[in-house]
C-alpha cells in the first residue's frame, strides 16, 4: 500500500494536469485508476473539492461505470465477452470451463490474488468470437487455454 501522502500528492498532480478540460471527471478517474489500479476511497474528497462537487456526486459517478474499481484487482484481469455474437460461438460454455478452472465466478478474484474474472459486453471482435481481453491484450477465438496466460 502506498504511503498516503505519496498517494494524495499523485492525485493532486493528476487533478492539476486535467485543469481546463470541459467535464474532466472521467479523464481524472481513468488517470487515477491507471496510476493505482483502482480509485482509492481517499481520492473521493480530494476530487470533490477540486471539482466543486459533493463527495456523493463523485461516488455516484465511480459506482455508475463498470470500469472503475473501488478496490485493487488481481495481478491479471481476464475479461470474457458475454454478448450475443460470442454466445453463438459457444462463449457461455467457454466461460463455464474457465470459471471452473479458476474456481471463481464473475467479478471474483482467485484467493491467491492472481486473477480477476470479469464479463465484458463486446470488444468489437464479433466475427472471431468468443473474444477476450487478457491484461489489455485482445484475444479472438478464445478457449480455456487462455488460463495458461494468467497462471503466474
Amino acid at each position, binding site marked *: 500500500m502506498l504511503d498516503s501522502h505519496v498517494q494524495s500528492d499523485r492525485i493532486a498532480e493528476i487533478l492539476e494536469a486535467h485543469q481546463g478540460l470541459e467535464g474532466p471527471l472521467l479523464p481524472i478517474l481513468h488517470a487515477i485508476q491507471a496510476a493505482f489500479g483502482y480509485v482509492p476511497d481517499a481520492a473521493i474528497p480530494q476530487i470533490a473539492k477540486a471539482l466543486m462537487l459533493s463527495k456523493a456526486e463523485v461516488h455516484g459517478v465511480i459506482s455508475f461505470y463498470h470500469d472503475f474499481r473501488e478496490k485493487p484487482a488481481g495481478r491479471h484481469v481476464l475479461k470474457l465477452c458475454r454478448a450475443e455474437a460470442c454466445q453463438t460461438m459457444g462463449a457461455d460454455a467457454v466461460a463455464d470451463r474457465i470459471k471452473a478452472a479458476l474456481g471463481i465466478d464473475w467479478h471474483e478474484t482467485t484467493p491467491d490474488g492472481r486473477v480477476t474474472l470479469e464479463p465484458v459486453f463486446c*470488444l*468489437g471482435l464479433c466475427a472471431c468470437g468468443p473474444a477476450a481481453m487478457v491484461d489489455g491484450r485482445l484475444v479472438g477465438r478464445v478457449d480455456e487455454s487462455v488460463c495458461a496466460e494468467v497462471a503466474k
Partner: protein
Amino acid sequence: MKVFVPLDSAAVALGADRIAEAIVAQGAARGVSVQVVRNGSRGMVWLEPLVEVVTDKGREGFGPMTLADVPGLFGDLSAHPKALGLVEELPWMKGQTRLTFARVGVIDPLSLEDYVAHGGLVGLERAAKMSKAEIVAEVTESGLRGRGGAGFPTGIKWKTVSEAAGEQKYIVCNADEGDSATFADRMLMEGDPFTLIEGMVIAGLACGATKGYVYIRSEYPVAIRVMEAAVRIARDANVLGPAFDMEIRVGAGAYVCGEETSLLNSLEGKRGVVRAKPPLPALQGFMGRPTVVNNVISLASVPIIMAKGAAYYKDFGLGRSRGTIPLQIAGNVKHGGLYEVAFGLTLGQIVNEIGGGTASGRPVKAVQVGGPLGAWFPPSLFDTPFGYEEFGAKDGLIGHAGLTIADDTTDMLQMARFAMEFCAIESCGKCTPCRIGSTRGVETIDRLARGDASAMPILTDLCNTMKLGSLCALGGFTPYPVMSAITHFPDDFARAKEAAE
C-alpha cells in the same frame, strides 16, 4: 520488400502483432530490407491475420497467417500455401461499393500523405469554400441518415445546430459502439482515422462549432490509440483549421452511454443517465449548448459526399435508404467481417451468399439484425431487403447494421432471457419500465422456462409497457429481440412442466 500487416483489433486478436514481429525478424536474419506497414483490416476477418506483399502485380494476400507461414513469404510467393492472389480481385472485395471504407485496409492509417494521395481532404477543401447553409444543403440532399441506428437525417440535425443561437457549439462523435455484432466504427477509426476527423471538421464548418469530441468506448484500446495519434498529426498539419479543435474522450464501460443524451452526461463527467427529450441535444446538448451528436460512420461518410457531391452518394441505395451501408456480418458465420454495399440486398443474400452460412456448418436458425436491441429474423424472412423502412415493416430494425448469425443449436428462450438480463445490467435506472421491467422480464422468462405457460401474457404485456413507456432505446427496444424470438420460435418457449410440479 513492402509488407502490410493489419493493426486492426480483430487481426491483432488473431495474432497479427506476432506475425509482424516475425516478418521483421525473418527479414533481418536473411539480410532482406523489409518495410512493414500496419494498415487497417480489409474486413475479411476469417482470413486474418491477412498479410499483403507488394509485388509487381499489385498487393498479393496471404492468410490466415500463422508463424510457420512467415518464412514462405521470402520464397516463391506463388507456391505459398496461404496465397490468396491479388486482394483487390477477391470476390469479397469486388462485390463491394466501398465509399466510406474506400481507404480502410489500403493506406497507412497514420500517414496524412497516404490519406491525401487516396483522395483525402478533397471534401474539406470544397466545404471550406462554401457557406454554412450550402454545406448543410449538400449533406441533406445526399439523403445520409444517422448510421448509429436511429436513421435520423444528418442534414436536418446539422441545420438545427447551424441555425441555433449560441456562442459556443460542439460536434460530438458517438464512438461508443457497444452493440454486439458491430465493429464498423472501430474498423474505420483504426483503419482510416483522418476520414472521421475530416468529417468532424466539415461538420464544424457547417454548424459554426469550434470544438469536437470523439467519445470512444474503453473496450477499444487500439481505436483510442490510433485516433489520439491521428488528432495530434492533423492538428500539427493544420488540417483542423484555425477555428476548430478536437479531443478524444474514453468511456468507462457503460453500454447506455451509446445513447446520445447519456453520452453527453458522461462527457460532462456525470453518471451516464439518459436525459428526457426535449430539449433536443441540437439545441441544448453538451454543457447545455447546441451540439451535433453523430455516429462515426455518419461523420465519416461526409467527406466523400462533399468530394463527389450529394447526387453521387444518393444514387446508391433503395427507397428512403440512400447511399451505402457497412454491413457487419458476425456470430456463427463462415465468412464474417465488414462488407460495404448499397442498401437493398436481401437478408438471405447477406447471410448465405456473402457470409457463406454458419461457421459450424449447421443450418441457420436465426439472425439478429441491429445488435442487442434488434429483432431475430428467421429464414422465412430472408427475402427482406436491407433498408430502414423495409426492416421496420417486419417489426425489426437495421440499427448499426450488425448481423449476428446463430445456428440451430441456439435456444431462443435463452436469447430472449439474455436480452432482458443485459437490459437489467446496463439500464441507467432513470425510467421505471427499463429499470424494473428488465428484471421482471428475466423472472417471467424463467417461469416460461419452468413450463409455466401462464407467464406468456404477462411477458407480452411487459414488453408492450417497456416499448411504449421507456425513455430511450435501451428499455424501448429490448422487447424487439424478446418478442421476435417468441413470434418466430414459439416452440422454444413451449417448455414441458418440470417433473417436480
